[in-house]
């Protein structure tokens, strides 16, 4: 049950609108904490999980989490998650996964989708309900498969089939079907291109990369660090209680522990090849090495109130402090497609009375190596921060040794909706470990950019 003591009411911050509630017993805000997480190893598209569905993968992620924390038969407050590439039959994907899991079938669930920010947005939704006292516990996560992506029929064929199904007579039906043209029989593969610009995400980011003058070498350094850091974390057993194998895969198969600057330098650019002729004279710099590959995978994070965790004898890794989402106008405006987190973070920090210096660890999703670099460059840029973010000056400089210390998406891969859960669980374990080592509270900032000019960010701290 929700805590309703006056003591916990006193803990709420002044910014939360606590005017006289109409219901006298309205619960006060309280902490939402991360108990732990689980994911399956991420796999490059078309490989180990080639015939695994989103439902199978997310169910596997749930089952691993249930096993780790002994949640069999447990009625959780909610399971929230989603997939970016989703079959229409998966309209209740997460609920179906719950029903196929060892959780109590009385656990509610809903699907949520915010492109690559799906996983983190799910965690925000779950933690908000926990903080409000509406639920005691919940799982947030996501899953995506490029290998098992839906393939649709053409618009012409779809229209004809629908008309035929509505037809009342055989004649009408034949007439409807007669409209189908041979060209309509070509299936439509899912595209992740931006619908309003027709450009792929990579092409968009190539523009941003060139605008900020990010070099090929700087991007390759980020990619190399991602692989090295992730490999080190795997070797150290960091993922022993964060990952459960699936379909014979025990580690992320995109990880190249033996990669080097030389190897990365040999790769040919894949994005931004047509930019050089435009107003930007830049050489294309974005390669398969410093961009994330198409990946399959799923992740899940267990969140709860402190009381629930304590009553279930479960550990608490971190407190989910606050979150902020943002969107940028990349269609008509001049902002880059993946720059929304740049806008969200200053607002998030300000609301919590923090600066970049108060952050011990940064988890910046590596959609591309240059996403990390343009984000950091923008925060360091005095004029940009003044004109675009409405700040007095540069937000600040981030110590690169605090960024993605256990690797990120360039090495692990990026199954769109599963990335938020991967980052949140890893970051929660990191702050918990660091706090135990140093005896001091440790804070982490999470930033995830997404298609559609969207971005989600969050702050967690050791609990």
């Amino acid at each position, binding site marked *: 049950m929700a805590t309703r003591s006056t003591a916990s009411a006193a803990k709420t911050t002044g910014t939360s609108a606590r005017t006289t509630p109409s219901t006298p017993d309205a619960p006060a805000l309280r902490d939402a904490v991360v108990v732990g997480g689980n994911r399956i190893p991420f796999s490059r598209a078309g490989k180990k999980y080639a015939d695994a569905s989103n439902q199978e993968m997310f169910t596997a992620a749930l089952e691993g989490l249930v096993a780790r924390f002994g949640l069999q038969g447990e009625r959780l407050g909610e399971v929230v998650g989603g997939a970016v590439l989703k079959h229409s039959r998966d309209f209740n994907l997460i609920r179906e996964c719950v029903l196929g899991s060892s959780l109590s079938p009385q656990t509610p669930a809903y699907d949520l989708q915010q492109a690559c920010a799906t996983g983190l947005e799910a965690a925000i939704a779950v933690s908000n309900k926990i903080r409000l006292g509406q639920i005691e516990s919940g799982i947030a996560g996501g899953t995506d498969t490029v290998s098992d992506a839906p393939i649709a029929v053409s618009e012409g064929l779809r229209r004809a089939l629908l008309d035929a199904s509505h037809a009342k007579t055989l004649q009408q039906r034949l007439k409807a079907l007669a409209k189908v043209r041979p060209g309509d029989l070509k299936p439509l593969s899912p595209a992740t291109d931006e619908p309003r610009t027709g450009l792929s995400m990579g092409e968009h980011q190539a523009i941003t990369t060139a605008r900020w003058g990010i070099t090929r070498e700087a991007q390759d350094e980020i990619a190399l660090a991602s692989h090295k850091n992730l490999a080190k974390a795997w070797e150290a057993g960091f*993922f*022993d209680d964060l990952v459960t194998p699936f379909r014979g895969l025990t580690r992320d198969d995109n990880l190249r522990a033996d990669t080097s600057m030389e190897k990365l330098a040999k790769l040919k650019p894949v994005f931004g090849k047509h930019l050089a002729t435009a107003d930007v004279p830049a050489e294309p710099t974005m390669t398969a090495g410093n961009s994330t590959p198409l990946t399959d995978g799923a992740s899940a994070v267990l969140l709860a109130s402190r009381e629930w965790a304590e009553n279930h004898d479960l550990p608490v890794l971190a407190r989910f402090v606050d979150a902020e989402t943002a969107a940028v106008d990349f269609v008509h405006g001049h902002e880059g497609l993946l720059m929304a987190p740049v806008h969200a973070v200053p607002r998030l920090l300000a609301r919590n009375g923090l600066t970049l210096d108060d952050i011990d660890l940064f988890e910046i999703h590596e959609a591309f190596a240059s996403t990390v670099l343009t984000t950091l460059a923008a925060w360091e840029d005095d004029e940009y921060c003044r004109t675009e973010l409405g700040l007095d000056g540069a937000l600040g400089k981030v110590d690169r040794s605090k960024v993605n210390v256990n690797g990120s998406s360039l090495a692990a891969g990026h199954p769109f909706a599963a990335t938020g859960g991967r980052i949140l669980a890893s970051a929660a374990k990191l702050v918990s470990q660091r706090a135990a080592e140093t005896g001091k509270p440790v804070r982490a900032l999470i930033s995830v950019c997404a298609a559609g000019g969207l971005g989600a960010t969050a702050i967690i701290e050791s609990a």
Partner: protein
Amino acid sequence: MTDAYTRAVNTGLTKTLAKKLGLPRPALLRRYKPGAPLTVGPVLVVSDDASKADADTLARTLLGWDLDVRRDAADDARWGAVVLVLTETARPEDASGAVLAVGPALKRLAPSGRVVTVSRALTPADGPELAAVRSGVDGFLRSVAKELRAGATGNGVVLTDGVGVDHLSVQATLRFFLSAKSAYVDGQMLPVGPADVAGEPDWERPLAGKVAVVTGAARGIGAAIAKTLARDGATVVCVDVPAAGDGLARTANQVRGTALQLDVTAADAGTRIIEHARQRHGRLDIVVHNAGITRDKLLANMDAARWDSVVAVNVASQLRINAQLLEAAERGDVAGLRIVSLASTSGIAGNRGQTNYAFTKAGVVGHTAATGPLLAATGGTANAVAPGFIETDMTKHIPFATRQVARRLSSLLQGGEPVDVAEAIAFLASPAAVGVNGQTLRVCGQNMVGR
């Protein structure tokens, strides 16, 4: 999971054919089902004159379990079990009457029937005649077991250190041998000594309220152990290497326990096991060292990688974890701890191509005998179970002919099931079995090799 041949000679036309041809017919073994009768029929209790008082005591115990107990071998019964009490027999000549009474009863022993001897262990103080008769029971029982048919087994309870037949551990051991839980235990003499037993036994859920850790729980015998301990009431922490995490999660979810992905060879494995059990479940009562690997090679071709990895996983890890458990017992973090380790008949009889494996499995037998007394100080025990040929994924990969021979080379003419090993472990881990300490119990269907 019974093998195809055993199924064939027990069903339909092939059964008739096998009978006509006089083919060896391994029986379908009766296995434990909750709520099923303890034995398949009445129990005959016989003894020589000197042991009559003990026989009476045991008969009363059996009556207390609602068994149909008879004392006259001439009764026209389809015997579920015969209990032969020779606890006080003083001279070899004195066993004659009781032993010869058992003979005719064996002709009317029901399928999956039981013969259990109750006798005393040799002691250094025994005179030559007493030593002869006490030793004699051993040879007698092992031979009787080989004469039994139709899934019947013979085993012996061996009393040590003057323990009385009314001791709960003696009763619990007798009950285990009489029950279907010992389906694949055959021809074994298990020593039972005096030790303090806390509380009344719960025969249906002997492990209720206990927290158990099972290593190598992702599949095979480990998964069966986890399920059996959970059936008996324990909360089970399932441990396996991170790479086996998917199977581990499956087991943990089946038994409603928790999964701990952990390499048992890690330096702090024992500490982490204790921490997990205590923080998440409040206590630690049972540790089953089941994790093990084989890296078979003739010694002439053995390399360091094969030898060292088998030693690291099969025995060194157990020793390191046990040391950490003993420290925790001394600190008072755990009490009455039961350790059960997996040995192997390969370690007892030896096996070509398995010098490394046999070295470690015999090592388990040795360290178990040494660890038992250390744990006894805090009310705990350490025992081992040595499986013979068990039908698992691992043994599925043995070449066909070798596998067939291995199966048939036992008194029960078949391989055992993972659950048979699990039942023996659950028994040794139960509170009532506290008098069994430092022992290695074979679960091998009386395999023809070794003891």
